[in-house]
């Protein structure tokens, strides 16, 4: 206990050092916890929303793009004797006057609901009279009491819902109040209408989204399912109700893994920091430790004391990290939700789910990482000979001798990392393990590189700054046991910044080039969707299409229909393209050539698939892609693989003719207009806005505007990556501040002697800043090749495996310069306080210390 007290007192006496380390580790923990909490909250929100809709259904009968014909319900009930079953219409709708607020519209038959969603029948005004109104009054809806309160609407109040660009006033006729909290949560964000009302609101007369079934487990259930399957029309199928949530999990898996990996990068930097602090703390007390050993303290007790000190540090840092993490998650959850909405599906996350498991994981990681980081310093401390403290010069000589060995180990680690990356196959986890091995390998190479760099820069630095310059270069190597770890930590963090920065820049440049070729029409017209990205499942009013076609200046119109169909690979984004040869150049084929692809596509019933789709499902030109159509499952030959960055899940395209031959849906999601030569796109957009005026809101955008909007979505998608990058850098900067500051403050006596010798405050500044600047410069320069290596792995391995995209690498000079600049500025900043303090403090107190 006394030993621990001595250790803790040491931390208290070095508040800057201890405080900055705590902050660094806390930030690392906070980043991991916040990312985890944000993802978990989004998943939970989706799960609850799905639960609200799915209720107790075990299976669902689903149809093709146009949904199910409602006549399937009596057929199943009467002919097959399926009971219970409930027809459902569902869709996401916006709320007028509440921007950004979306509700899930659930159209149900109240008489079939009891076995599925019993909570719908509970609450104020759900008695027989209200039920009558609900069924008979057009536009009657039910809301949960909480949702009604949030939207500030009561019974008999009116809400205006927005679906596919149209607005519909509805009247709240009752409030639902489920008994249990979970159902209450599941119902938040749900607006319930009678089936007919919902069909009318969504303009889907006679169509259903799905029919819910409760199928008992066991052989009887299987037999029932077989009978149902046999009776269904060709385009329909039975799927387990959980398939929807599973698909969502699969959809965002790569996104989640990437976020988690980035957050671990922040923790890795935090780990370096903890290692640095503990090493430093041990080195500072080597005399005390020697004395304790002389007094009879055993090696094991020394190890225990150092680990206990780390535990105290870890506990404080982790507690702070958890609090910070929860605060950070509040902001992060918005970014995660936005990205999921842009790229994957509609989800509304209203609150942060404080999962105890996530918090426990964060705590375990924080404390575990700090303890792990303390193992080597603890072992070093226990090796101190009793009595005479190990001489500093011996220690440093040992560090210098260890540098080549560390470099060899680093090379081995680099090779292991490269091997892991190479043989990881499609495993994202192993790819990241390889990436982390490469980072660690580079960190181990750092001390030797520092010795070389200090040797090389000593003459020019001496020439430039005189004695302080030479002393600075010498100091870098003379204190290698401490500078080595600090520079390695800074290098890792800056390399991560460079790697992620280059990855984003390369990706963006590739997307910009892709948009330039893929957006060939002059004007695009679509109905607004709730999803930011290529949602495209809204349907344009045929009257609007006719008016647009007839507009002056419009020379050709291409049609685009985006729907989701099922395939043996799961739900697949299918696009029906109605375009002419003038629009062919928007496709860049990675497999197959235009001459062979287009005839097969237009007239041969072939499909083309995007690169991520082909990559995910192992498809190539000539493969047969099976899709469920309204005529049953059909095989479509793959004629080509094209470059596409619109969706990481990938997309399948067929011609409009092929689509209409296989699916009954005749809807069009958007139009691409080619204007007559000389027509001004912006003027045409303005004219179309006037001309197409009707009851459907339209998004009419020029090529340029759509391109800008697409890039905006791209930037939004990477906003979270950028935030994590900034946080990882912040952890590193704090780490370096702590390490370098402690390093310089420890020199108080030496600097005091220099002041006695006649070093002016300005010369002390010069010396300290030259040394920290040199450390920063070395870290920055080393970070460039390591960062480029990381970028190459991220671009060509991780991205490819996670999303299936091939990205062209770009190496913008300013990203690299920024990296070196960042490292030097961080290091100079770290030197500023000690330099200021030492220059300002009279030398006498510095000499009195010790």
């Amino acid at each position, binding site marked *: 206990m006394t030993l621990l007290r001595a250790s803790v007192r040491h931390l208290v006496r070095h508040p800057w050092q201890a405080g900055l380390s705590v902050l660094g580790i806390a930030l690392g923990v906070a980043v991991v916890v916040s990312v985890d909490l944000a993802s978990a909250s989004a998943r939970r929100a989706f799960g609850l929303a799905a639960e609200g809709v799915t209720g107790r259904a075990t299976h669902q009968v689903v149809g093709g793009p146009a949904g199910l014909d409602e006549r399937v319900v009596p057929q199943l009930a009467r002919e097959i004797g399926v009971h219970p079953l409930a027809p459902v219409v569902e869709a996401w709708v916006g709320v007028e006057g509440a921007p950004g607020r979306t509700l899930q519209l659930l159209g149900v038959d109240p008489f079939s609901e009891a076995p599925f969603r019993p909570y719908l029948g509970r609450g104020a005004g759900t008695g027989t009279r209200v039920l009558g109104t609900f069924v008979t009054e057009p536009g009657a809806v039910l809301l949960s009491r909480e949702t009604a309160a949030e939207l500030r609407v009561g019974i008999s109040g009116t809400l205006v819902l927005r679906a596919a660009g149209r607005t519909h006033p509805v009247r709240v006729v009752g409030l639902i109040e489920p008994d249990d909290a979970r159902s209450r949560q599941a119902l938040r964000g749900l607006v319930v209408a009678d089936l007919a009302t919902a069909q009318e609101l969504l303009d889907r007369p006679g169509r259903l989204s799905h029919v819910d079934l409760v199928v008992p487990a066991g052989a009887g259930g299987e037999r029932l399912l077989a009978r149902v399957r046999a009776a269904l029309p060709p385009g329909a199928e039975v799927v387990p109700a959980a398939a929807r949530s599973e698909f969502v999990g699969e959809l965002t898996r790569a996104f989640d893994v990437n976020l988690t990996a980035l957050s671990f990068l922040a923790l890795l930097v935090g780990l370096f920091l903890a290692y640095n602090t503990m090493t430093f703390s041990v080195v500072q007390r080597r005399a005390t430790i020697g004395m304790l050993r002389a007094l009879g303290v055993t090696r094991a007790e020394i190890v225990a004391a150092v680990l206990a000190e780390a535990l105290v540090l870890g506990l404080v840092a982790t507690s702070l990290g958890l609090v910070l993490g929860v605060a950070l998650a509040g902001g992060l959850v918005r970014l995660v939700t936005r990205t999921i909405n842009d790229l994957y599906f509609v989800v509304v996350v209203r609150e942060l789910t404080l999962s105890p498991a996530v918090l426990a994981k964060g705590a375990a990681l924080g404390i575990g990482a700090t303890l792990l980081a303390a193992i080597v310093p603890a072992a070093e401390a226990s090796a101190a000979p009793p009595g005479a403290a190990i*001489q*500093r*010069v011996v220690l440093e000589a040992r560090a210098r001798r260890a540098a080549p060995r560390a470099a060899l180990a680093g090379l081995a680690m680099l090779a292991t990392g490269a091997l892991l990356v190479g043989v990881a196959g499609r495993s994202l986890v192993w790819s990241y393990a390889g990436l982390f091995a490469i980072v660690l390998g580079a960190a181990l190479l750092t001390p030797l590189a520092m010795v070389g760099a200090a040797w090389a820069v000593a003459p020019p630095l001496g020439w430039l700054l*005189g*004695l302080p310059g*030479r*002393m600075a270069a*010498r*100091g870098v190597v*003379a*204190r290698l046991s401490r500078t080595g770890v600090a520079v390695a930590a800074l290098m890792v963090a800056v390399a991560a910044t460079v790697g992620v920065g280059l990855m984003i820049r390369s990706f963006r440049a590739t997307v910009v080039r892709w948009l330039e070729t893929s957006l060939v029409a002059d004007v695009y017209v679509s109905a607004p969707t709730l999803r930011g990205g290529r949602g495209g499942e809204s349907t344009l009013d045929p009257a609007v299409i006719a008016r647009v076609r007839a507009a002056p200046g419009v020379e050709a119109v291409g049609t685009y229909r985006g729907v989701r169909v099922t395939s043996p690979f799961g739900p697949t984004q299918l696009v029906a393209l109605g375009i002419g040869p003038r629009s062919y150049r928007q496709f860049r084929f990675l497999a197959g050539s235009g001459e062979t692809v287009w005839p097969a596509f237009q007239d041969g019933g072939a499909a083309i698939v995007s690169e991520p789709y082909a990559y995910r499902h192992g498809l190539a030109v000539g493969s047969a892609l099976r899709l469920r159509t309204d005529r049953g499952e059909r095989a479509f030959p793959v004629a080509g693989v094209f470059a596409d960055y619109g969706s990481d899940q990938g997309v399948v395209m067929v011609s409009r003719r092929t689509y209409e031959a296989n699916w009954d849906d005749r809807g069009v999601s958007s139009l691409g207009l080619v204007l007559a030569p000389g027509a001004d796109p912006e003027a045409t957009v303005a004219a179309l806005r006037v001309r197409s005026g009707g009851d459907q809101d339209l998004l009419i955008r020029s090529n340029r505007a759509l391109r800008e909007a697409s890039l905006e979505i791209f930037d939004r998608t990477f906003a979270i990556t950028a935030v994590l990058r900034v946080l990882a850098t912040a952890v590193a900067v704090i780490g370096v501040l702590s390490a370098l500051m402690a390093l310089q403050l420890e020199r108080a*006596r*030496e600097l005091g*002697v*220099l*002041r*006695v*010798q*006649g*070093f*002016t*405050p300005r010369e002390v500044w010069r010396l300290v800043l030259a040394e920290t600047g040199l450390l920063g410069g070395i870290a920055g320069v080393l970070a460039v090749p390591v960062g480029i290596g990381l970028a190459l792995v991220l671009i060509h391995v991780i991205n490819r495996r996670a999303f299936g995209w091939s990205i062209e690498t770009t190496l913008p000079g300013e990203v690299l310069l920024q990296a070196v600049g960042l490292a030097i500025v961080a290091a100079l900043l770290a030197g500023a306080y000690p330099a200021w303090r030492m220059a300002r403090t*009279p*030398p*006498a107190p510095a*000499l009195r210390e*010790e």
Partner: protein
Amino acid sequence: MRAPAPGVPLVELRGVTKAYREGDAERVVLNGVDAAIHRGELCVLIGRSGSGKSTLLNLIGGIDVPTAGEIVVDGLPLAGTSEAARTLFRRHHVGFVFQFFNLIPTLTVEENLRLPLELNGRRRESARARARALLAEVGLAGRGATFPERLSGGEQQRVAVARALVHEPLLVLADEPTGNLDLDTGRQVLELLDRLTRRSGRTMVMATHSPEVVGLADRIFRLQDGRLVEVGESVAG
């Protein structure tokens, strides 16, 4: 014993008081100290631990400033002088020898000696020649490329003595220069210090507990209860 040095004293202390705050209390270490030290004198300061010997040396060297009173060295009133001016004063005119050597660990022995010369604007080659000559004089020729921590305590203190004199300062201040050395080594260092300062006619003030030093002194001062009392002259000289 030396004849009293004529002319203006090199160091004049007039009513020098130095107090430190310790919590709410104030501890007076020096209380109205007066003294005059002439050029070429070797003065020894004796007194118990904590009597203020180091403090007085720090004040004379311009490392610290008095709470009250005046300190004039070579005509420069240190108490009223800026920190920057005191730094330059130290750089040009003072050489220090400490109990714990205080060599710069990241500089080699020769570089430690070149440091004051380069600070005084000596050209590199000339500084190198001077440093090597002095190293030979203190018996450490050939050890110039070694780092201080590789040397024994006595060797380190010899380097410190050489460093204090290398730039030919007006005044050498030595704070317990033998306090960290064994008897024989301490004696050798003292002889060296005495020889080099006397030969070059430098003035030296040395704080010590060592009775050996008392024998070398021109004048002996005792610090007791914050007061400085000249207790007599040495038998040396």
